[in-house]
């Protein structure tokens, strides 16, 4: 599978610049210079692809795990939205979430432990620069191992178990990881179709009274935001968010476009996930460091006395907040690594 002379399709243009310049430019073809391609690697790729089930998240053998989309943004006003997504995964296929319920149910500790363990394994390390150059105005990120994250809350929605993991490091950063995995109640098997998102942020002050904060937001798997358009098919992603509530708040209902979801609440925090988006998928991501797209979320709060506050406004964090988010998805036995912006 070496780089050979290209086979022209059907040249319709007699020349691009002029015959002489074209010939000289074609001689500078980067595909024909440098180390020749290794046919054995192409054969290995073919075997790897054929060995994968075309209807499941598939794995291509690649030499290293490429960090999923990382997006650092400085935003004041609302918490920056970190979104990242995945490719080559069917975790976001609409049918996959058929059992999802808008209201969470309790989940067995044993199921939580299974998903949390798989989640930590997939997330690995959160933060750090991964050797990439960050914009000059973005301070370097510290990092934390997912093994140091504790289960903050967990719930079950149909066949899906959600865990929210968190910790705060001594430098004041708070770190979140969230995972969803298919693990039907009563199942003795391993979690399947695990998707994870991880983010780190400056942390928000705990709200008082009826207040609440918007913490990190992310999409688990906008598998085919770009490719889907191209391929005429769009897998449905799943999104998640979390935050803090004041002591008066006993219920958080989140509206994300057409989807409404009752968040799980525990110890002053809330978290939820749903099939769908967290930002408008038709609006492009801004360049990093230039704030974030507006999330499509609205919130209804239920207070202790039964009062419902519709379209409640979150507490604005003071100053700048840096959020880093990354996301990946895998089956229980394989990992996909390519990222796609939604």
């Amino acid at each position, binding site marked *: *599978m*070496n780089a*050979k002379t*290209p086979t022209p*399709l*059907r*040249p*319709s*243009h007699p020349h*691009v*610049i002029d015959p*002489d*310049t074209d*010939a*000289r*430019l*074609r*001689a*500078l*073809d*980067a*595909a*024909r*210079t*440098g*180390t020749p*391609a290794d046919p054995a*690697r*192409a054969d290995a*790729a*073919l075997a*790897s*692809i*054929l060995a*994968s089930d*075309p209807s499941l998240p*598939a794995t*291509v053998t*690649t*030499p290293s795990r*490429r960090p999923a*989309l*990382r997006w650092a943004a400085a935003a004041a006003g609302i918490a920056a939205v970190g979104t990242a997504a995945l*490719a*080559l995964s069917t975790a976001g296929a609409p049918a996959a979430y058929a059992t999802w319920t808008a209201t969470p149910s309790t989940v067995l500790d044993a199921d939580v432990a299974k998903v949390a363990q798989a989640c930590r394994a997939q997330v690995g390390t959160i933060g750090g620069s991964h050797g*990439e*150059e960050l914009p000059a105005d973005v301070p370097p990120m510290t990092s934390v191992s997912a093994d140091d994250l504790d289960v903050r809350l967990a719930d079950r929605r149909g066949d899906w178990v959600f865990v929210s993991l968190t910790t705060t490091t001594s430098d004041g950063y708070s770190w979140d990881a969230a995972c969803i995995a298919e693990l039907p109640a009563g199942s003795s098997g391993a979690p399947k179709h695990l998707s994870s998102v991880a983010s780190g942020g400056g942390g928000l002050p705990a709200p008082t009274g009826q207040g609440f904060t918007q913490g990190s937001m992310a999409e688990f798997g906008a598998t085919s*935001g*770009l*490719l889907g*358009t*191209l*391929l005429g098919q769009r897998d449905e992603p799943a999104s998640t968010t979390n935050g803090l509530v004041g002591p008066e708040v006993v219920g958080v209902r989140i509206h994300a476009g057409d989807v409404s979801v009752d968040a799980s609440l525990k110890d002053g925090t809330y978290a939820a996930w749903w099939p769908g988006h967290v930002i408008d998928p038709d609006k*492009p*991501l801004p*360049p*990093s460091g230039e704030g974030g797209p507006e999330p499509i979320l609205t919130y209804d709060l239920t207070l202790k006395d039964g009062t419902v506050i519709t379209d409640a406004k979150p507490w604005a964090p003071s100053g700048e907040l840096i959020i880093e988010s990354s996301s990946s998805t895998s089956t229980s036995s394989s990992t996909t690594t390519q*990222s*796609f*912006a939604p």
Partner: protein
Amino acid sequence: METMTAREQRFRALFTTHHDAVLRFARRRTSPAHAEDIAAETFLVAWRRLDAVPTRAGEVLPWLYAVARHCLLNAERSDRRQEALAVRIGDALSEPGVRADLGDSVADRTDLAAAWRRLSATEQDVLALALWEDLPSPQAARVLGISATAYRLRLSRARRTLRGLLEPSQTPPTSEPVLRVAPAPQESTR
């Protein structure tokens, strides 16, 4: 409904026929090592979406190039948003295999390479599809996800800019600076 065997056979044929071309496409736009990943990812998409792969001969490669291009753009997006891909140019001066019968001097080639590198990513993108992928406008437009008319317009601008860079005496560099600094036109690739 194809059987798995028929499906595999079709995919093997697709891979064998087009892998080299897709790899070359990627190598023009990223490092050789990353290009292999991009080619593999492109064919993984094709494997999973085999029913979406065009069957007509002239449409297959543009489809695969478009997938590869999205893979490349998304890899680049980890740090910044991009709508166009810079296209690398070979270091012809150190390559023994480059044709030496074109009569151009080392200085000519250096000038040409320098001029190429001064093009914007958008200009390199459109020119490369015509020059190295050798695609007619409708197919090249499909790779970029734009109309054939928009492609021809971009190609015409890029051609003019390159000519201007190669003939600075006739076309002062200041005559069309906007072409080199303007952002990609808004008909996006999404």
